[in-house]
């Protein structure tokens, strides 16, 4: 096909594009995969039975706020990296700052409790499954984020994959917080954060190949 034929074809196919098209695609992709991840959580792990009671505790809302900030920063990063000139430095900075605050809170809580309880606070009762579960719940979201990005124009596949993975891990940890009944800051600061970072790593490694166009 000659370039002129191609131009004629593309011109014939032209349809108006809404200015919010990118945002809509991000919302659709992450929205649907959030539902998928939540359904997976309910069917596979189940909601925590004491949810009503827990929702009156500080710890529940700390976990909720922590994962929500990461999720919003991550989702926004997917939107930004979808543009050819997109930079996600701000988003990564916000996520890093949020994690640092969580670690400081964890140390503060450790400082206020007797040393012999520290190990229990770090290990909780679900240390063996927490990070794994978050990574599992992040997989539908990772697929959703990749679908979003494959229709847009990220010019740095590895970085875009990392953004997709961090967003998927963060949203998954938000979903997981409705199942998990751990209530110690050090536990959240270590194992939730690790889940988010592992998802980010998976995203970076796979994105490098999947996000080419």
């Amino acid at each position: 096909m000659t370039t002129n034929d191609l131009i004629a074809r593309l011109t014939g196919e032209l349809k108006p594009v809404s200015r919010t098209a990118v945002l809509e695609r991000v919302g659709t992709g992450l929205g649907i995969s959030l539902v998928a991840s939540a359904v997976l959580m309910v069917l596979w792990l189940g909601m925590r039975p004491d949810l009503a009671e827990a929702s009156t505790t500080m710890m529940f809302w700390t976990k909720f706020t922590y994962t929500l900030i990461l999720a919003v920063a991550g989702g926004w990063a997917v939107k930004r990296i979808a543009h050819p000139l997109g930079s996600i430095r701000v988003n990564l900075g916000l996520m890093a700052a949020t994690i640092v605050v969580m670690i400081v809170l964890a140390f503060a809580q450790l400082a206020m409790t007797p040393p012999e309880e520290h190990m229990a606070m770090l290990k909780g009762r679900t240390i063996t499954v927490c990070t794994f579960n978050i990574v599992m719940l992040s997989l539908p979201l990772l697929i959703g984020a990749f679908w979003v990005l494959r229709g847009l124009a990220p010019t740095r596949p590895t970085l875009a994959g990392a953004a997709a993975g961090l967003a998927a891990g963060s949203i998954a940890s938000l979903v997981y917080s409705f199942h998990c009944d751990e209530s110690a800051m050090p536990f959240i600061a270590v194992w939730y954060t690790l889940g988010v970072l592992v998802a980010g790593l998976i995203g970076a490694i796979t994105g490098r190949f999947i996000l080419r166009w």
Partner: protein
Amino acid sequence: MNSIETRLKELMLASLAGDARSYGILLNDVAKHLRSYFLRRLADAHKSDADDLVQETLMALHTRRATYEVDRPFTAWLHAIARYKLIDHFRRNRIRATVPLDDVEDLFVQDQSDAAADRMDVNRLLQSVPEKSRDLIYRTKIEGQSIAEVAQSTGLSETSVKVSIHRGIRAITARLKGNAANDDK
């Protein structure tokens, strides 16, 4: 500003609104720029790939046009896509790039949102110069026209154009020095 940018951006905005005529002109223009862009960056053995790259980039422009943000320069966006396609081409064919990839100032403007503040300072300074000199300075120093071109289009002699510009610049210098003196106080 850069006239290529102004022209292409207008066409792109019309195309995003669904104007097929503008879109046809845009794609034809862009194809020409892209062809020379790729030709200059491909080694002799690979020059024949230029047309494929042009078509691939046009396809990408088409299917991913929603990612153009209207408050940014169009040429910077297009350059990012063309550069991506070129790097992807090198990677797929295991070619080592030996031509500088970023040598594009002549064709594509960079994203200059940061430079906007500087431009506003320049405009404010220019306001302090008499109108006649202001226009001449703007056309020669900022738009980059030659003295001869400006003389011809204004009907002034080259000498009086030069004198006017010289006076205007002296006025600006004086004003900058005055500001510095004020700051010292």
